[in-house]
């Protein structure tokens, strides 16, 4: 290990950028891996229980989208496990024995998820309805436990525990303490709720758009209501969780907290900054609520909040502005989503009806994108806020990065690949939905349909004028 520790003059920025973009991409798909099965199974449950064809149709279509997203997620997840070694051999060589345990557990859940995804996605036709429904249950459970395991590994980097070092090498490990480090309960709960919110609001947003375009049949109402309810239950829990976590970070990683809240110097009566850019000791374009940060931290304006002057400059996170604005974005969106959920909840409580006013549906249409932005903001806060440490107060990023040349090349390739993957991950479901909307049975599964598609029979949907389908999507397929 000694030799590697000495090869230092490596610039970690390309590696950090690659890790950041890979994680930022994967985490969106991971949300679907964690929670989409639960959303789909809720619709399927309604469908089977009430003999509701619209709900069943939704579940079946969602499972098709799930097939695409989970496959891409499996691949981008593999990229991350490679990158742990390709980019951070200094971390894995030294601490692999400790951080490896949660990852190993995750391997089991990933296995279970992959196995039952195979059964669930391809079992629609030939399994009995309830057998099929139950085949999805392991995906839900494995999604939750797998997410907990991976996030526990990240928590360990924030609160390293459960190992002893002698001569710079790990001499003993306590896997249980590694897994249940002090950050684990906070981070895992936060991420699980986020996963349900991202999936719920994104899927609901699709049907909000449909309703805004006038398609207000049962199919669209249900397609909106099921995911929105799930995300709406998670939203208030998430806001509460966020408040608790902020106080925990102030206690656990005060320097990260200082960057989040613009606290340059340790002080009482610390103001709460909303927005603002930090340049040379001044906050521009921000609004300050006097002493509110101290109140949030300790319920009293006289609470002392630790500033980043408590550590030397080379131990402070860079880009305080990025960290603070990401934090504000996350909190702001959190409250926005909470308000949406509360509005619909109110309406349901007193009117037992779905809100379909554009005033409600337009914000709902963008709620999914907003939830993604909030989650990405949260990851920026936790990851950039931990810098310059890769393992908090134990190992510097610059001591963990690979000495191998070629990272700028792989960074470029990853960016291009992920750009393509993003376009395709969004494009394919969009394409599917357009085809579904045009509603031509023959178009959906050409090879299994006994009659050939014509050029003119389609384009009929309940609320759209009949249209002549373009030849490009309607001709007999050749394989």
């Amino acid at each position, binding site marked *: 290990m000694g030799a590697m520790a000495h090869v230092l003059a490596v610039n970690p920025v390309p590696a950090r950028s690659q890790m950041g973009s890979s994680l930022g991409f994967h985490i969106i798909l991971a949300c679907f891996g964690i929670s989409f099965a639960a959303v789909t199974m809720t619709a399927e449950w309604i469908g089977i229980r009430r003999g509701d064809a619209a709900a069943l149709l939704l579940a079946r279509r969602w499972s098709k989208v799930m097939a695409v997203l989970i496959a891409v997620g499996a691949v981008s997840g*593999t990229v991350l496990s490679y990158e742990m070694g390709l980019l951070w051999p200094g971390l894995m060589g030294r601490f692999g024995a400790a951080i490896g345990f949660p990852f190993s557990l995750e391997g089991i859940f990933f296995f279970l998820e992959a196995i039952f995804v195979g059964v669930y996605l391809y079992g629609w036709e030939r399994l009995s309805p309830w057998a099929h429904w139950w085949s999805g249950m392991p995906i839900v459970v494995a999604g939750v436990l797998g997410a907990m395991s991976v996030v526990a590994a990240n928590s360990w980097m924030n609160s390293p525990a459960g190992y002893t070092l002698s001569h710079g090498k790990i001499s003993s490990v306590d896997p249980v303490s590694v897994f249940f480090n002090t950050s684990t309960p906070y981070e895992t709960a936060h991420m699980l709720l986020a996963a349900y919110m991202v999936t719920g609001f994104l899927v609901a947003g699709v049907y909000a758009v449909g309703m805004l375009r006038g398609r207000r049949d049962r199919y669209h109402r249900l397609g909106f209501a099921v995911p929105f309810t799930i995300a709406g239950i998670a939203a208030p829990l998430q806001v509460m969780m966020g408040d608790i976590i902020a106080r925990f970070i102030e206690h656990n990683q005060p320097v990260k907290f200082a960057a989040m809240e613009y606290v340059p110097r340790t002080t009482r009566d610390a103001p709460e900054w909303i927005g603002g850019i930090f340049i040379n000791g001044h906050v521009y374009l921000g609004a300050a609520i006097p002493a509110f940060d101290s109140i949030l931290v300790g319920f009293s304006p006289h609470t002392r909040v630790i500033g980043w002057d408590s550590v030397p400059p080379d131990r402070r996170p860079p880009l305080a502005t990025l960290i603070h604005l990401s934090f504000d974005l996350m909190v702001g969106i959190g409250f926005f989503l909470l308000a949406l959920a509360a509005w619909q909840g109110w309406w349901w409580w007193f009117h037992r009806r779905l809100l379909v006013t554009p005033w409600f549906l337009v914000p709902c249409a963008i709620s999914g994108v907003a939830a993604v932005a909030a989650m990405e903001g949260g990851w920026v806060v936790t990851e950039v806020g931990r810098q310059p440490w890769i393992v908090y107060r134990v190992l510097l990023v610059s001591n963990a990065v690979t000495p191998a040349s070629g990272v700028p090349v792989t960074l470029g390739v990853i960016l291009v690949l992920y750009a393509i993957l993003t376009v395709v991950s969004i494009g394919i479901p969009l394409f599917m939905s357009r085809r579904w909307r045009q509603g031509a049975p023959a178009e959906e599964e050409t090879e299994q349909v006994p009659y050939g598609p014509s050029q003119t029979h389609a384009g009929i949907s309940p609320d759209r004028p009949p249209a002549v389908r373009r030849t490009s999507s309607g001709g007999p397929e050749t394989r």
Partner: protein
Amino acid sequence: MSPSPDTIAVAAILIMVIAAYALFGGADFGGGIWDLLAGSAERGKAPRDLIDEAITPVWEANHVWLVFVLVLLWTAFPPAFAAIMTALFVPLSLSLLGIVLRGVGFAFRHTAERLRMQQLTGALFAAASLITPFFMGTVVGAVATGQVPVHPVGNVVAAWTSPTAILTGLLFVAACAYVSAVFLVPEARQRGRRDLTRYFALRATAAGVVTGALAGVTFAELSVSSPHVFAGLTGIALPLVTISIAAGMAVLGMLWVRWYHALGLRVTAAIAVATVVWGWGLAQYPYLFPTSLSLRAGSAPKASLVGEFVVAGLALLLVAPGFVLLYFLQQRRMLVAAETDADLRLAAQLERPVPGQPAAASAPVAARVTTALVLALLAIRAIRDVFSSPDRR
């Protein structure tokens, strides 16, 4: 100094997992290779469809073995993992590129067929199936020849471009094609496709011969490039090597006499591949990198190893039954791509099969006849749905 029992046990688990990935993951990669070699769109349609049907529901689960290999290696043998990942940065990145491209090909193939991009995604899928096993092979070759430094200060290009490493890469590709073709023979037979059974039996024989030849050359090359591993293969691991050769011969014999017994063929081919992997692992003993890094020096503290036992036990308890179920359902052909949703759509009243829209009225005669037929079929379906118990209740 010999390694502790838990180190040996975890190393054994690691080798088993590698063998499992070589078998299941390898078979899926091999499917991609046969897809590549299936010829023109028309001629290759039947074998491509079979490959697709056989792999689609299971590839993701098979892929997870790789994640397990990585995780086990970094938890149980962290210094070896860090050294491999640093020195072999290039081939590992390339194999990862292959994995990404293949996954993309898989995820979007079925949709792409309707997007008329099937040739592009098909090519992506097939090319990736060559890249990944080849570069993984060079990685194994580099490790086996002991050319990975324990403390690398950057890429070590010479390690994975040695003749042995390149040969190992080619051997991996051939072995994937071989396993896949053997596995596809019973798949074709179960579907009653005599032509395809013969098709893949011929290819399995050819790939078997090529794999055997490549293995022989690699073996000879190892005597020069890695005396330790060669001595192991001809010493302690000789029984495993012998079993592998015997099993490989047996598969060729079965194919020759056209005894296409599903379980017999699969198990024998699996033995042929798995014993080679185990033999390689055993021949390296007691080294992670012959002869610079021993198992003892490279292993994690005891508790980490015990943790991996627990994980392996849990995997046996939870994952093994899952796999049995998955393969059972797949073999019983219970897992098929969903058919059309027309029945559900009708029931949900998203469809309004009302005759006489303007578009249809102005259509040419052939189109009108087709429309009429479609509507008639939809009506029949609707009536059938009303009078029989619906599909899903």
